[in-house]
């Protein structure tokens, strides 16, 4: 039964709290979800496209870098070839066979870069006709050398560039040989390229800390040292790629270069030189080449994380604030409802009492008149003296009781009329005295003594007595309630003339705990209450304030924490002009 009754009512406090908590969680969850998910999607999309873009850029940079490098290497080789060709074309074999001539030519062509290690003139039998260089090679016979065989079996004019080899001198090197045919005579101008100079040109490119640039011959043998430990003339782990004159770029695993356990993912570009058939290649760990992307991804992750956190924190705070506002609003609605219920209850009580009073008045009038008829007859009729005596006594009793009933019905009617505003001459002392019996019981139960100190020659004022009654009823009840906790105290009500403002002051002081300064500004606000939920509506003082202001007066409060409070009602001798006309002065 009790639960069924509860279900129809507004939810109670614990149910409300659970509801607020549920709403709070829900709101935080959905807000966070709806803001963080798009953020993550955005981040993912950005990352996806940026990665594409950055990979393409890294590849392009690999291509252009290698293109330029290949050009450089090629240019160097062609330059050396051109020098030798020029020498061969512009001089006869006999001239070059002279050691002094050859020496001066060696010095001339070697003047700038020092690219040549030595220079030799070799006849068709493979013997040196002349040799300029650091080694004792004058007696060497090249007829069995792979390069000599290769060049002699080729066309009559040709330039041959060998792979790196150790040869007679036991040091890795390569040669450029130019074959010249003069009638039936064939001879070769052969030069060794200074390995260090060549290496500088090939290897002098830094590609991060994991990158390297190197040359491979068609068999996959290193033609240069590499910065990651590859040695000249060793087999490279890097696979020989198909021939191409334009730079190609690939991403993949090309074998272990350093101390890795498994081949790292790498980006590599390569291109084939024309003469000699060497492959110039460049490779770098993918992770390093795309460091920028990884860095951006990392930074973005942090930003995402921070944003998500910020969103969460803001959401929590905003939701908390909103829930607080909702709670406050709900509470106000509750209180307003309560006030409304109370007001309508009062109104219906008023209506009821008016009805009852009226219905009782008629029979009362009849009883009264019948009583008087009997009284009339008693004067003229002869009757038994004892009966007559009793009749008189009964008639007087009846008359008194009727008067009592009349007083009752009249005050009921008065109560029901309280909302009407009637401006009349009012004796404030009398008004306060009338109010006191209504609250004496309250005062007694809270242990409060009521002390009335009226000023005897207080002027009457023109005002609305029934509304003022409500003001004093509210104010005095309020100050009595202040003593609820202590269980003792006194309320002093003083009336006095206010000469300055031409009116009357009514001071109501209590011996309660006083009002803290931070609350004193709020006590006349509607719905402000310090009483437990359900006890006070928070409307009492604001209604008092409204009524007193309407009547042209002032309601003020002074309070000292621990000492008590003094409410001062000032009422003017006459109400504001507008009110006088509206209220209808009798």
């Amino acid at each position, binding site marked *: 039964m009790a639960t069924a009754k509860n279900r129809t009512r507004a939810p109670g406090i614990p149910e409300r709290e659970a509801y607020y908590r549920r709403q709070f969680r829900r709101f935080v969850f959905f807000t966070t979800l709806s803001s963080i998910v798009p953020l993550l999607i955005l981040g993912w999309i950005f990352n996806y496209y940026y990665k594409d873009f950055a990979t393409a850029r890294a590849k392009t940079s690999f291509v252009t870098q290698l293109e330029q490098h290949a050009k450089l290497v090629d240019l160097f080789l062609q330059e050396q070839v051109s020098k030798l060709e020029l020498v061969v074309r512009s001089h006869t074999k006999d001239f070059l066979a002279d050691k002094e001539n050859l020496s001066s030519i060696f010095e001339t062509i070697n003047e700038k870069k020092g690219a040549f290690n030595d220079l030799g003139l070799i006849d068709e039998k493979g013997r040196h006709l002349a040799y300029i260089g650091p080694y004792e090679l004058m007696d060497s016979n090249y007829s069995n050398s792979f390069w000599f065989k290769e060049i002699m079996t080729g066309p009559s004019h040709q330039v041959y560039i060998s792979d790196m080899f150790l040869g007679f001198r036991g040091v890795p090197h390569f040669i450029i040989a130019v074959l010249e045919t003069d009638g039936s005579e064939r001879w070769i101008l052969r030069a060794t390229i200074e390995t260090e100079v060549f290496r500088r040109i090939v290897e002098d490119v830094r590609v991060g800390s994991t990158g390297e640039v190197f040359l491979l011959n068609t068999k996959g043998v290193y033609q240069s040292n590499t910065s990651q430990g590859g040695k000249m003339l060793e087999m490279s782990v890097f696979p020989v790629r198909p021939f191409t004159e334009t730079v190609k770029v690939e991403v993949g695993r090309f074998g272990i270069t350093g101390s890795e356990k498994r081949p790292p993912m790498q980006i590599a570009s390569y291109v084939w030189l024309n003469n000699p058939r060497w492959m110039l290649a460049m490779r770098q760990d993918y992770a390093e080449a795309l460091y920028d992307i990884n860095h951006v991804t990392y930074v973005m992750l942090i930003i995402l994380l921070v944003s998500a956190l910020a969103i969460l924190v803001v959401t929590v705070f905003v939701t908390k604030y909103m829930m607080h506002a909702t709670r406050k609003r709900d509470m106000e609605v509750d209180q307003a409802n309560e006030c409304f219920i109370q007001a309508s209850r009062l109104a219906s009580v008023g209506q009821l009492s008016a009805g009852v*009073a*009226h219905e009782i*008045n*008629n029979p*009362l*009038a*009849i*009883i*009264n*008149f*019948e009583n*008087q*008829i009997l009284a*009339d007859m008693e004067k003229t009729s002869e009757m038994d003296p004892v009966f007559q005596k009793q009749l008189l006594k009964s008639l007087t009793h009846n008359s008194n009781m*009727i008067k009592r009933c*009349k007083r009752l*019905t*009249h005050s009921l*009617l*008065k109560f029901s*009329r309280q909302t*009407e505003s*009637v401006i009349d001459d009012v004796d404030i002392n009398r008004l306060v005295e009338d109010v006191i019996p209504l609250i004496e019981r309250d005062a007694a139960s809270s242990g409060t003594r009521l002390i009335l100190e009226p000023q005897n020659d207080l002027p009457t004022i023109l005002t609305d007595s029934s509304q003022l009654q409500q003001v004093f009823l509210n104010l005095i009840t309020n100050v009595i309630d202040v003593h609820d906790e202590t269980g003792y105290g006194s309320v002093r009500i003083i009336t006095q003339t206010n000469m300055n403002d031409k009116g009357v002051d009514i001071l109501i002081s209590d011996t309660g705990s006083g009002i803290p300064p931070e609350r004193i500004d709020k006590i006349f606000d509607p719905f402000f209450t310090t009483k437990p939920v359900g006890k006070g509506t928070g409307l009492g003082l604001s209604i008092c304030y409204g009524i007193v202001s309407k009547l042209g007066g002032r309601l003020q409060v002074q309070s000292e924490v621990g000492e008590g409070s003094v409410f001062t009602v000032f009422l003017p001798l006459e109400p504001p002009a507008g009110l006088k006309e509206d209220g209808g002065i009798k």
Partner: protein
Amino acid sequence: MKGTRVLLVDDEVDLTDSTKTLLENRGYEVTAVNSGDSAIKTLGQERYDVMVLDLKMPGMDGISTLKEIKKLQISTQILVLTGHGAINTALEAIELGAYDYLTKPCDIDELTEKLEDAIKKGESDNKKPSLFRALNNVIRKK
């Protein structure tokens, strides 16, 4: 005052009965009716010095009755009797030409007092036209 004609109007028969008895004991000539309609009808047929009118009646209520009586332009003085205690209604009645009002329940002495006052007022009202005539005559003679 003996011989004064009083018309009682109240829907409550018991009340008019006892009021009638009391007033007759005090020498008034009393007619009692129990609705606004019959009050107007009775007033149209006979002359009354004072009418005691209840404001709250079923059918035609006191205020409507007053409005109708005002149209008749008769010299009967009207005392309003109300159990309602609503001063506003009483004031409205006075504005409509009622002489005074009484709230139920009242003592018979209060009622007779007001009745006498009302009768005096009625007499002076009635004298006014003749006084005017006398005055006019005096002026004309001059």
